[in-house]
């Protein structure tokens, strides 16, 4: 017997399985047939002689990490980054000559807010190292461009998408977003489609070098 006002749609109950493919169908009891356990506990961090050597050399600046990473990982204090990076490059037993990737991760609830993650490789020794640097919103990160030229575009990307500032960078401009874009899209508090973030040609002045792109409108 149904009440006259009831709609044909059933209200969602927490324990009820939803349509297949819906991502939040997690309310279902975990089925025994699944070999990969969804709630697997985190694994301890990797140990490596490189980490031991770095912690021993820079006891104040370098610390171990607790989270699971796929490469050996250390956390370096922002102020010691140039020193530690120079050591990574010059020390013959480390010889990290290849800076393959620089990423930025935003943790808005944490202080410092951002993590810069550098992935170093040594082509000679074939070993790898992940370096994490905590950066607050007001901090300025020393650029690694003078040691690894490949850091140039990577750092511009972090600057563009996360709004982290670098010092000593030869050409710190936005790279993927337009020059006059408002906000930094990869920040977690960036609201998509909230307002018009692209003011168009506003601010374009050929006499002053266009939008600041080198060469445009100047000789």
């Amino acid at each position, binding site marked *: 017997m149904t009440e006259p006002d009831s709609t044909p749609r059933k209200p969602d109950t927490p324990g009820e399985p939803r349509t297949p493919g819906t991502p939040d169908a997690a309310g279902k009891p975990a089925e025994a047939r699944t070999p*990969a356990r969804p709630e697997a506990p985190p694994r301890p961090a990797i140990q490596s002689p490189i980490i031991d050597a770095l912690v021993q050399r820079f006891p104040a600046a370098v610390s171990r990490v607790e989270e699971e990473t796929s*490469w050996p990982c250390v956390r370096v204090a922002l102020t010691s980054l140039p020193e530690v990076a120079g050591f990574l490059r010059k020390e013959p037993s480390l010889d990290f000559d290849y800076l393959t990737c620089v*990423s930025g991760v935003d943790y808005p609830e944490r202080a410092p807010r951002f993590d810069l993650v550098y992935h170093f490789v040594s082509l000679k020794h074939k070993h790898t190292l992940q370096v994490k640097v905590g950066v607050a919103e007001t901090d300025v990160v020393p650029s690694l461009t003078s040691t690894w030229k490949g850091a140039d575009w990577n750092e511009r990307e972090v600057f563009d998408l996360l709004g982290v500032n670098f010092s000593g960078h030869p050409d710190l401009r936005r790279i993927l977003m337009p020059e006059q874009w408002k906000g930094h899209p*990869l920040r977690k508090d960036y609201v998509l489609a909230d307002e018009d973030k692209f003011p168009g040609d506003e601010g374009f002045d050929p006499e002053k070098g266009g939008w600041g792109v080198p*060469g445009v409108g100047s000789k």
Partner: protein
Amino acid sequence: MPELKTDSLFINMGPQHPSTHGVLRLGLTIEGERVVNVFPDVGFLHRGIEKLAESRTYIQTIPLTDRLDYMSGMSNNLAYVLAVEKLLDVEVPRRAEFIRVIVAEMSRLASHLIWLGSFANDLGATTPLIYCFREREDILDALEILCGARMTFNYVRFGGVARDATPPFVEKLRKFLSIFDRRVDEYEELLTKNAIFTNRTRGVGLLTREEAISYAASGPVLRGSGVKWDLRKDAPYSVYPEMDFVIPTGEAGDAYDRYLVRLVEMRQAARIIRQALDGLPEGDFTAKMPRVLKPRKGEAYSRIEAPKGELGFYVVSDGTANPYRVKIRAPSFINLATIPTMCKGALVADIVAVLGSIDIVLGEVDR
């Protein structure tokens, strides 16, 4: 006679230029025919794939990776899946590993064929373009038999692949491989000793070994500069250690060397596919996976030797069904950063050759 005063001139190449292969803008400062400086301007195709991934589940991100380097979607799928699998307790069946190697190498062939055709076309040789597209068609037909798609595959999945390799696929692929080496000989006949081609590429776009490493260039750009570095050998993944193949390197680090490296890579890719087809074991093509995928809390960086170089995915998981952060280390993006170095002092016409020799895809540069 008073001394002639020359001034440098700023011109734009692109973003709507046929030889920028998409929407790349190069700002050039030139003095006469000589390039003083190059300012690459990227981002016209930025779709925010890294941001999109944060609001999708892990498996919903796989189709997004197809749109990175759309010449070799399979490689992108594989790189992303390998990164997430590091945070899952999953054992990939051997058959799936072999199929993954087969499709990744097919992607390499398809990508290099497009590159060869368009590179030769940029330099004025139209014939190789037609030939290369003919061979690529066979690869795409085979992939279509395998997974139903020709460019956006969404085929490599967590724990294995989406569908099994069927006999018609294997048959089609073997038929293609039986003629492919002869086809590469044909391209070589057209180009390798062609005076116009060698004049346009030899000594053009020089990148020294040290510069290539410092820029973290990868793939044929790095190997063309004489660095023997291939992740399939130097940081092996999947079942590559079981495959027998050689890594070509160049000597001069010019556009011609990168061309030679890619030609050898095509032959080697065909060789790897043959070995993988011969050794293709029976068994499951995928492991049993939970319907809701929640990798454990942690971070993973995986890198593969994609056709254009080191394709890396840095995935941060916070234990929920959506990735917290996905960073894509795109080989084209990093390789393109070398272009100001390669073009310094070159002729304007050589920029086309240099850009072509890097082999960029803007879908991957801009993400």
